[in-house]
């Protein structure tokens, strides 16, 4: 491998490595910045999500409370007119989007249940909600029959407290997607609950269909602080936040995910343009390296050729290097050497003039 090739290779390799390191550094800095941004967004989003749910809870509870002020309903309850109560509960349940309405006695016994498909229950399964409802309407997200519900419990007064009405409003995929459209919630959001064997089970999810919790932590504690995780070849920053639930319900956790790939997508066009610029720079660098290498290696090559001629006994040509550096000095010295050798070895004049001794003195 010639000196020029090695020099060009060194320059090109140096340039390429430098470009790759720069690109890697910029990518990593951007990625870290996005992770930090994602962590901050998730913390805020978790707070906003919990607040949104609380606000909606309050509104739903107020709506259900207004329904319980219906005089005919209260009269039917007070007079134990079960058919009328069931009919009125179905009617009011439709108004607030409840899929199941229950009339609960002050002792917690179920007095009426609008559900015909679910197995009948004797006692209301979330007694802490009925207890709290004695003071004011209570609401919480609960896991019930493998689904997430908003369980709203309101007192029925006629005018003294005579019973409680519980409205089970489903918190489903559609609801979460609706919340995502209305706010800054991340694309990945899901509600999970813990099954009896400790596994996390997704009971509602937003627009993104990835099962974040089950991939991240099949059992045990979900990350309470933002955590970076790779799922199905994609990177996410994930955060779990426990929602206010009933003490009698399995825990309900909102799992929020921030997709780093999605976050990096806007940077891809910038990255492409930047890559093209890098390639152009690299091509220019190669040309420049070739020119520089040629400038550096050319005098050395001339000297090498001159040295080869001298070795072959050819003193007819002197190296022509015009440079004011060490290579130039070497060339000049070699040229002088060749000239002297040429002078010494030329044929002696027939008249013997000038005499060799004299010539040597000069």
């Amino acid at each position, binding site marked *: 491998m010639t000196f020029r090739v090695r020099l060009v290779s060194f320059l090109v390799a140096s340039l390429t490595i430098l470009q790759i390191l720069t690109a890697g550094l910029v990518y990593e800095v951007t990625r870290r910045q996005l992770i930090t941004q994602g962590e901050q967004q998730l913390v805020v989003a978790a707070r906003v999500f919990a607040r949104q749910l609380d606000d909606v809870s309050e509104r739903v509870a107020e709506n259900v409370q207004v329904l319980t002020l219906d005089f005919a309903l209260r009269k039917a309850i007070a007079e134990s007119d079960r058919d009328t109560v069931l009919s009125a509960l179905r009617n009011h349940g439709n108004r607030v989007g409840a899929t199941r309405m229950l009339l609960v006695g002050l*002792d917690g016994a179920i007095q009426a249940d609008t559900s015909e498909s679910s197995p009948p229950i004797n006692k209301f399964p979330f007694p802490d909600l009925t207890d709290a409802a004695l003071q004011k309407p209570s609401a919480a997200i609960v896991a019930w029959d493998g689904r997430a519900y908003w369980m709203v419990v309101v007192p029925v007064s006629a005018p003294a407290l005579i019973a409680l009405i519980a409205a089970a409003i489903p918190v489903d995929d559609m609801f979460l997607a609706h919340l995502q459209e209305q706010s800054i919630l991340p694309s990945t959001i899901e509600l999970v609950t813990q099954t009896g064997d400790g596994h996390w089970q997704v009971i509602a999810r937003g627009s993104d269909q990835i099962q974040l919790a089950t991939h991240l932590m099949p059992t045990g504690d979900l990350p309470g602080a933002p955590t970076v995780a790779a799922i199905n070849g994609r990177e996410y920053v994930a955060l779990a936040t426990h929602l206010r639930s009933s003490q009698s319900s399995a825990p309900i956790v909102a799992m929020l995910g921030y997709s780093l790939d999605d976050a990096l997508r806007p940077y891809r066009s910038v990255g492409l343009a930047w890559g093209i610029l890098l390639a152009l720079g690299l091509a220019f660098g190669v040309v420049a390296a070739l020119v520089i290498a040629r400038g550096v290696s050319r005098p050395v090559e001339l000297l090498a050729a001159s040295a080869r001629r001298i070795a072959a006994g050819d003193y007819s040509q002197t190296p022509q290097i015009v440079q004011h550096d060490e290579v130039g000095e070497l060339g000049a010295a070699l040229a002088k050497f060749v000239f002297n050798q040429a002078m010494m070895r030329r044929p002696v004049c027939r008249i013997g003039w000038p005499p060799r001794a004299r010539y040597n003195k000069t």
Partner: protein
Amino acid sequence: MKCCRYCVIVAFFALTRSLGAAELTVHITDARGAAVADAVVTIVPRDSTAATTRKASAETKVVDQKAETFNPYVEIFRPGDSVVFHNSDQTRHHVYSFAPTRRFEFVLTSGQSSAPLQLDQVGVVAVGCNIHDRMITYLYVADAPWIARSAINGQAIIDALPAGDFDVRVWHPQLRPGRPDSAQPLHIAESGDAKQLAVSLSLLPDPRAVADRERTSY
């Protein structure tokens, strides 16, 4: 005959008078130590065979409706007593009760009074107004020998208690439903000294309070 069940046993009352009767003051407070008004204190002798006192004739008491409020909040009745509702407001009131012991429902125009409603059965009759959710009153019908309602200072005073052992029960509309009334034993000695009794109640919020002042400006 019905009234006879609640007639006065004068002899026993006179006897206790002659022996010297005691006065009982019950101090009723809530969980924060504030005086509780409108609590009903009933005193029942432990010996169920003991004779009891009873006023001679039935009374008719008026519950007024003024400024969209029933007044009083709690009224004590004896079986056989009657209640009359009077509307002192400029608006109508739709008075109703779904109590098992006494059910009624009628509308009173401004200045109108209802016909007397007799309260024959022992129990609590919660009365409301269908137009105004926060209007509520309780008619406490009891045949206990001694009964009193606590005043604004939280004190209920019962005098002329004879010597003996009693149960003192305290009821309030804002007690948690489904739980027995607060009950304490009481012993009155022959000397007839005045007795003091302190009762603390854990109460639910007052249903007459306006629910949300933040959203309403009226």
